């Protein structure tokens, strides 16, 4: 090969310096490494495709590419947390830049240079060298942070209570990367110590290290350079070959999962369409999941972010979303191996054969399954876009619909919903009694209104909830909004049935409501309950119910902004606002309730530590409202403690379930004298100071 000479003004470096005899050998080894990589990927591919029902996840490519860009390339979710964000960011962007750099290097060496165009020269080369060293250093720092965190800091999320998750693979992957970078720097240093090119201080890593070898004679340095170069090559190729067989596979599966993410509203579920002829409902076995639900498990990096905010886990229930996904993964690995063998034996790749474990009870413990509050924390914060909640609900569907084997108190709730269209089983004819003295018309009496106030079960039957309905109705009346209610024609929204796995009951309730709403030509709906809000807004369209749905905090915020209501009476005190999961994480309503509170004279707002998208569930979602909580601590008490810690005298809420749970928490903590939970509407109504006028 022709030797190029570099000089100041024409800076550069000799590719394959000192090792150009080995060039062909390097390519030969690379082919072997890539073949091992490809074979691993092929095997994995067979496993991904072995089990799982079909599901459409390659539509709306544009949105998918955007998700891929934002989550994979920009790492936005990973950066939500400082330490792990920076740690992963250093490694990720380090690899990205080094990968691009190597590609640029290869393009020049193999494609452009033979045609006489070498662009890695001069200033470009210097900047290039600098960046390669800088990002190499980033990787190294990232790995050190990772090692320190995993093996010395030992955060809870990298384990499951007392057990650590650490596998040999974790350590091996980290050490492998650290060695690639370290040997890279040493090789560079040895080269610089021999070539002495004066501009090489741009390769600052190698430059500094070169000092160490300053005294060595050229031959020794060259020999060590060759040895270290081979070591570097070998470890790098080992890394590539190792990817599909290790946790490093997430380099591929996680971005793939970002691409395949659900484009449906948060936590929404595919409705069951065939009740008549299906023999089984929901997911009782792995084979009942879709390919994507299974692929999720392989994209999980065990980072544990989901677990860190899971109210079930933190309150001492056996559920951890990370463990749930990992248990499914372990089971999938077994099943896919069996399915793979059968398919290579010519049989159908169904994974059948020996009786497989049930998901519900064997792979996933039933206490885990029923502990989930559907709070959405896990899905909101999972950097790999894993969808835990639909899996939980699908498994519950199996227990409820197919096996009818679930908690007696929940059975009672469902019977009550069937017979009286409310979870308490209070006579359906009493639904509108809260409104008796308010002069509110039903749509049957006057359908020409702007809004339907869908009151919901809590607002209609629960004593505390009724007060919220009254306060909100009075606000609307004071603002001169034309609205009506459905009265006894209203039914339960069905949220608790759906989230508790009783899709059949849910759909019958939803259809009954939609039928009535459509009959009156309802267009706009307001709810005070985020569960009804979410169901009506996000799920009813599945069954022909297309309405504009508003939460009362959205309406009140607007009434204040437009000056339709005046908040003149100070409501003194420190308030802390508790984000309802179904309002916040499910529907992105974080601002309005806070804007309202800030508009109330005298209110001082204090945020809890877990707030906004990090908010801690009150414990009532996912049908947990109706179930006994007999393992670990009570979630509502924990949330109450978090509120107490702010020093607030009032917990402001925007959800009747939260209202009940936190009121109970205040009682449990014996704070009734000094603390209260109030709905935003009640606070606003107080501040409007119209009680005298209204009564």
């Amino acid at each position, binding site marked *: 090969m022709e030797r190029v000479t570099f000089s100041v003004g024409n800076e550069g470096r000799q590719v394959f310096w000192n090792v150009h005899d080995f060039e062909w050998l390097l390519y030969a080894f690379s082919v072997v490494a890539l073949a091992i990589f490809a074979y691993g990927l092929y095997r994995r591919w067979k496993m991904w495709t072995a089990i799982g029902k079909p599901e459409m996840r390659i539509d709306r490519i544009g949105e998918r590419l955007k998700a891929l860009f934002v989550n994979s390339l920009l790492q936005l979710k990973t950066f939500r947390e400082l330490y792990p964000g920076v740690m992963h960011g250093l490694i990720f962007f380090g690899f990205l830049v080094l990968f691009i750099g190597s590609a640029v290097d290869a393009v020049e060496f193999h494609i452009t240079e033979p045609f006489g165009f070498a662009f890695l020269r001069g200033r470009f080369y210097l900047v290039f060298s600098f960046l390669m060293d800088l990002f190499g250093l980033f990787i190294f720092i990232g790995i050190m942070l990772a090692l320190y965190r995993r093996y010395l800091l030992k955060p809870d999320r990298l384990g499951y209570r007392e057990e650590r998750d650490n596998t040999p693979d974790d350590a091996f992957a980290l050490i492998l990367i650290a060695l690639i970078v370290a040997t890279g720097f040493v090789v560079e240093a040895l080269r610089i110590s021999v070539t002495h090119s004066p501009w090489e201080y741009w390769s600052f890593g190698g430059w500094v290290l070169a000092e160490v070898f300053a005294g060595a004679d050229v031959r020794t340095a060259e020999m060590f350079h060759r040895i270290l170069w081979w070591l570097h090559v070998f470890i790098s190729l080992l890394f590539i070959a190792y990817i599909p067989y290790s946790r490093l596979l997430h380099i591929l599966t996680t971005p793939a999962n970002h691409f395949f993410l659900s484009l449906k509203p948060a936590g929404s579920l595919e409705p069951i369409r065939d009740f008549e002829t*299906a023999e089984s409902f929901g997911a009782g076995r792995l084979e009942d999941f879709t390919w994507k639900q299974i692929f999720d498990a392989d994209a999980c990096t065990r980072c544990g972010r989901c677990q860190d905010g899971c109210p079930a886990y933190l309150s001492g229930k056996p559920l951890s979303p990370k463990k749930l996904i990992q248990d499914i993964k372990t089971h999938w690995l077994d099943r896919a191996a069996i399915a793979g063998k059968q398919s290579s034996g010519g049989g159908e790749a169904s994974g059948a054969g020996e009786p497989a474990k049930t998901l519900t009870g064997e792979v996933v413990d039933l206490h885990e399954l029923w502990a989930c509050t559907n709070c959405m924390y896990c899905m909101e914060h999972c950097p790999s876009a894993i969808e835990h909640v639909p899996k939980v609900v699908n498994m519950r569907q199996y227990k409820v619909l197919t096996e009818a084997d679930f908690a007696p108190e929940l059975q009672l709730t469902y019977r009550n919903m069937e017979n009286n269209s409310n979870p308490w089983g209070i006579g359906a004819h009493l639904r509108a009694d809260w409104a008796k003295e308010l002069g509110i018309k039903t749509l049957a009496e006057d359908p020409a209104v702007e809004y339907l106030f869908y009151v919901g079960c809590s607002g209609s039957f629960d004593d505390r909830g009724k007060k919220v309905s009254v306060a909100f109705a009075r606000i609307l009346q004071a603002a001169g909004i034309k609205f009506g209610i459905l009265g006894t024609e209203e039914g339960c929204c069905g949220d608790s049935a759906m989230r508790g796995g009783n899709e059949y009951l849910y759909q019958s309730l939803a259809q009954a409501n939609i039928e009535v709403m459509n009959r009156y030509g309802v267009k706009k709906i307001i709810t005070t309950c985020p569960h009804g809000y979410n169901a009506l807004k996000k799920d009813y369209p599945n069954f022909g119910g297309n309405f504009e749905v508003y939460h009362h905090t959205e309406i009140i915020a607007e009434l204040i902004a437009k000056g339709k209501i005046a908040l003149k009476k100070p409501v003194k005190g420190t308030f802390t606002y508790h984000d309802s999961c179904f309002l916040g994480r499910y529907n992105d309503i974080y601002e309005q309730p806070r804007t309202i509170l800030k508009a109330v004279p005298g209110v001082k707002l204090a945020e809890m530590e877990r707030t906004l998208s990090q908010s801690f569930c009150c414990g009532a979602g996912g049908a947990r409202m109706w179930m006994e909580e007999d393992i670990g601590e009570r979630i509502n008490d924990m949330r109450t403690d978090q509120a107490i810690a702010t020093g607030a005298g009032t917990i402001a809420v925007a959800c009747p379930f939260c209202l009940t749970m936190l009121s109970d928490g205040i009682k449990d903590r014996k704070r009734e004298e000094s603390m209260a939970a109030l709905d935003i509407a009640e606070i606003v109504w107080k501040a409007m100071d119209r009680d005298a006028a209204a009564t």
Partner: protein
Amino acid sequence: MNIVACVKQVPDTEAQIRVKPDGSGIDETGIKWVMNAYDEYGVEEALRLKEKHGGDVTIVSLGPARSLEAIRTALAMGADKGIHICDPALDGADAYVTASALAAAIKGIPFDVIFCGQRAVDDDAGQVGAMLAELLGIPQVTVVTKLEVNGASIRATKPVEGAQLLIESPLPCVITAQKGLNEPRYASLPGIMKAKKKPVDVKNAQALGVSAEAKLKVLKFVPPPARPPGKIISGDDAVAKASQLVGLLRQEAKVI
């Protein structure tokens, strides 16, 4: 084992009961009809016996066309077939006529044990089970909270004032079910769907040869008197409130 469970469709206990203006009955509009809760215990026990000893469960019900729903509910829980005694001539049947019709229907099929609820929550008469046993000429154990079946006999637990009776009886016999006997199951969805296709024999009085005459006649339905509204005691302090309370208890309630 041939097991029979009798069920009655009744208004949901939370339903609003309005008496027709002429007092001839209740206004059925808006009423949610369900299976009588005590009958559910009977059905559940029947299903548990079937699961343990094999055999099949037949549901028998007397009532208007809507009663079919109650039969389907029991079939959804897992019963095998139904007999629906449906005849306008039997509307307003008293316990005696009902028991006669049930007896006539049950005589036509093989039976080892018959379950009834200890009473129906609508008229609270608690007679049908007992009469049915008499009409069939077999023993009965009523208000049962625990049941064991061994071969050709049963041992049943029945609570009585301050004690429990353990009663043994040969089969066939009639058992009337009390709360506590079991926790009735929630029907699975495949169960609900299958129930739609299970056979239900509809029979009228003539086909069964029932000619019993009612022994009781309901003269008139009257709603219970409206409860007077509660009083909230007001007063500036505890003493004032207490003295007002004492006054009211003396003069109005006349309890002290």
